[in-house]
């Protein structure tokens, strides 16, 4: 029993496990929209873009959230601008801008040896870097995201399901999309310290896909995804202490196990639900 409770005597672990639980739930919440819109790649891309900002912040000794936040927002705006010019597709724009930003981050970290220790923490997450301030930041971002999802529930649902009809039905789809992108960028920023750049995309996808395999209801998918994400964060962080491995990697591995169990329980039926591109053939009327 003493061994089981041992990590809780350390303040850094208590901070870490609270942040990991909140981060998992936050990724689960935002991830529902990411998955249903087929935007998994942008989650992956934005997290890599923000890495460049994290590196620059560490090198010039600017607040992490400020530096990486500005960088992430600039990347998102740049992706939007390149895409609107229609010279290249949005996937190519995301690929070029975010990998360039990621590469710049690696160069900056490589050029400044003192910051080297930060690379692994930013890439794979670290409970050692989590402070009491980070707990408040992730808590505030989680509450903000939950409030936005609550008060913009119908607009987000309609815009995700059928943007064209939502637009002609008086929903401001451009503003709703921008709001979602902002929530996504801020969520990635807030959870980066625990889960890490490389693995955030996985936590944006695994909880919602697992939840989708369990239900056909959007509202139920939302809270199931939050619960699965939070549980993965909690269990993953706890195991990472005892196994002495990266917190982000452990959280994602726990998520993968949950996905495997969900798939085993539901089989192809559940996977059919979760596959956005599997369009059920209409049942023809007699």
């Amino acid at each position, binding site marked *: 029993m003493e061994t089981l409770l041992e990590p809780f005597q350390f303040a850094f672990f208590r901070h870490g496990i609270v942040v990991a639980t909140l981060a998992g739930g936050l990724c689960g919440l935002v991830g529902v929209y990411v998955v249903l819109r087929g935007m998994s790649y942008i989650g992956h891309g934005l997290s890599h873009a923000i890495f460049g900002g994290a590196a620059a912040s560490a090198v010039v000794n600017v607040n992490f959230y400020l530096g990486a936040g500005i960088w992430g927002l600039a990347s998102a705006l740049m992706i939007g601008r390149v895409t609107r010019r229609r010279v290249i597709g949005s996937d190519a724009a995301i690929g070029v801008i975010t990998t360039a930003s990621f590469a710049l981050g690696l160069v900056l970290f490589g050029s400044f040896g003192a910051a080297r220790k930060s690379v692994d923490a930013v890439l794979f997450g670290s409970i050692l870097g989590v402070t009491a301030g980070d707990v408040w930041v992730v808590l505030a971002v989680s509450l903000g995201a939950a409030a936005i999802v609550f008060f913009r529930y119908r607009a987000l649902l309609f815009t995700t*399901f059928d943007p064209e009809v939502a637009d002609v*039905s008086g929903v401001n789809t451009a503003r709703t999309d921008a709001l979602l992108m902002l929530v996504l960028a801020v969520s990635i920023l807030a959870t980066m310290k625990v889960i890490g750049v490389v693995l955030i995309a996985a936590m944006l996808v695994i909880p919602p896909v697992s939840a989708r395999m369990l239900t056909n*209801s959007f509202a139920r998918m939302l809270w199931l995804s939050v619960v699965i994400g939070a549980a993965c964060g909690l269990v993953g962080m706890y195991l990472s202490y005892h196994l002495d491995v990266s917190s982000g990697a452990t959280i994602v591995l726990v998520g993968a196990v949950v996905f495997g169990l969900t798939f085993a329980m539901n089989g192809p039926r559940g996977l059919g639900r979760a596959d956005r591109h599997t369009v059920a053939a209409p049942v023809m009327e007699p």
Partner: protein
Amino acid sequence: MSEPLVRIERATCAYGGVPVVVNADLEFSPGDFTGIVGPSGSGKTTLLRAVLGTVHPVAGTVRRLRGLAVGYVPQLETVDWNFPVTVSEAVLMARTKGRVLPWAGPAERREVVVVLERLGIAELGRRHLRELSGGQLQRVFIARALLRQPQLLLLDEPTSGVDVRTRHDVLHLLADLNAEGLAVVLTTHDLNGIAAHLPHLVCLNTEVIGEGAPADVLTPEILQRTYGAPMEVLQHGGMPVVVDRSEPNDNVIRLRRGTA
């Protein structure tokens, strides 16, 4: 004579500088039931989007009656059938604007039940979209459009990919709604199954080639200009029946069958 709901005057719509609809002059008035026919890429959907206001003409004007309520039913293929919503939730989406709370109030729930009953699908309210047939799904999206209490209902290919019985049902449903006073404008590829049964047709191939009753526009000359292929028009039970006279294709089919 009542004022038109939508007046399109010499409107040209283009994507990236390429004109898709050129110099269109059309009017849609209360009580109209109009079909827009034409080949793929002829500008049918663009014309609907210009009426909706999501595509803006690069020349000419599209004027809508002030405060006009428009319902829109998109092509079924554009919708993710696997999306996790029930029929009631999908219909309720029409009540999104200005709503803050995520859940529906009793009045909204009652409205959804009424519109589902009106379309004969009240028993499907709790079903998931992927459990529905093509015809049922079409009714769900018509129900969602009707919940906005529109004066004009626009439908993009409402009978695309459905069987003959469903096509018949959808056509009768739209005729009933039109008889209740709703103006209906739809696009269709189906000349014999849908277009020939409508009171008014617009033949479109970037330009408006012809406009009027089926008997006036479903002629070999107008169809040749619209589709760029020879077509024969026969009369059956007082209605025009269009026959494709593209013989080379027939020969190809015969040849393939012969060599199989």
